[in-house]
């Protein structure tokens, strides 16, 4: 697939850990969920403020949430890599094979990509600068609201498709 070797992303070390220590997979699941809770909780609050909920809060006051969203994302990526690279130890399937057949995994990656593009558009257009100075009771511009709504929908979609991945294998 994509001209990559079929064992691309496969890690025998992670497989060995998962096969030897039964707790590695469920602990990774627990921390994947903790990451998801941190990420979705913070993203929801930031996006809802842009959409006009919690309008009495100046947007800059929500800035301390950003590092926690990043921490949540890092937790999800690291534990997600455990699932992907050690997949063989759990379901005897290569990561590239799973990527080729699991439509839910494909949808999750598409949604993550779209959320990334949305974030880049938000950050590298004048929208972010206008949002950063959003005062209490001030409405966000319509373009920012569209991006905020898209972000919320995409992250809900990422959680939704992610939960369905085992049923697509």
């Amino acid at each position, binding site marked *: 697939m994509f001209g990559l070797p079929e064992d691309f992303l496969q890690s025998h070390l992670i497989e060995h850990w998962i096969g030897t220590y039964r707790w590695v997979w469920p*602990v990774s699941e627990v*921390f994947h969920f903790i990451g998801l809770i941190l990420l979705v909780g*913070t993203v929801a609050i930031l996006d809802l403020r842009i959409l006009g909920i919690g309008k009495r809060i100046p947007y800059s*006051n929500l*800035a301390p*949430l950003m590092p926690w969203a990043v921490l949540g994302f890092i937790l999800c990526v690291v534990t997600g890599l455990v699932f992907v690279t050690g997949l063989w130890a759990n379901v005897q399937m290569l990561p590239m094979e799973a990527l080729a057949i699991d439509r839910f995994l494909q949808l999750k990656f598409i949604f993550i990509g779209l959320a990334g593009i949305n974030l880049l558009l938000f950050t590298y257009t004048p929208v972010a600068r206008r949002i950063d100075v959003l005062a209490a009771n001030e409405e966000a511009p319509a373009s920012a609201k569209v991006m905020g709504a898209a972000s919320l929908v995409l992250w809900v979609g990422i959680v*939704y498709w992610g939960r369905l991945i085992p049923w697509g294998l």
Partner: protein
Amino acid sequence: MDLLQAIEASALAMWIKESSTIYVAILASHTIGLAFLVGISSILAFRVLGVTESIPIDPFQEFFPLMYAGAAINVFTGVVLLGLYPADYLVDPTIYVKLAAILAAIVILRRLKDALYGVPHTTQVELSGKTRQMAVALLIVWLIATVAGRVMAYSTPTKLQTAAATVIFLAAGIGLIAMFGRRLRLLRDS
């Protein structure tokens, strides 16, 4: 036991189980509800603990309806999921740990809400040691509920090992945040 088996074999339960689309949609909705309920209430707890001190407490209650929506989704989907395999779930002590933790979380959240918003106040709310204790307790019971929910499909030794490993990794994580949190902007400068 006969009643549980009758519920498991009921027409509604069989219909949901046989329709893979509906079953997985209920399961996924349960996770979305959890993310909103636990995510937003955890950020409230962070705020009470002073981690995200710049967020004014009073307007934060405008985010509560989303938390309630998450709770409503989880009660509905949780009851449906429990009704699909009650004979399996209700003989597993883990489900009672999860339910007790959720119940404790709801009670603590209610008391925290009353303590923060029960009396008229300005945006500068006086945070007492008691509200901070409630915030810590809320994070702990949410963690217990999350771990219990994730390990239900595993054997008892794996459940116990997972719980122990989670506590160890989490303690290490909290230690790292205490050491490097200010540099990483996770904690405020004080």
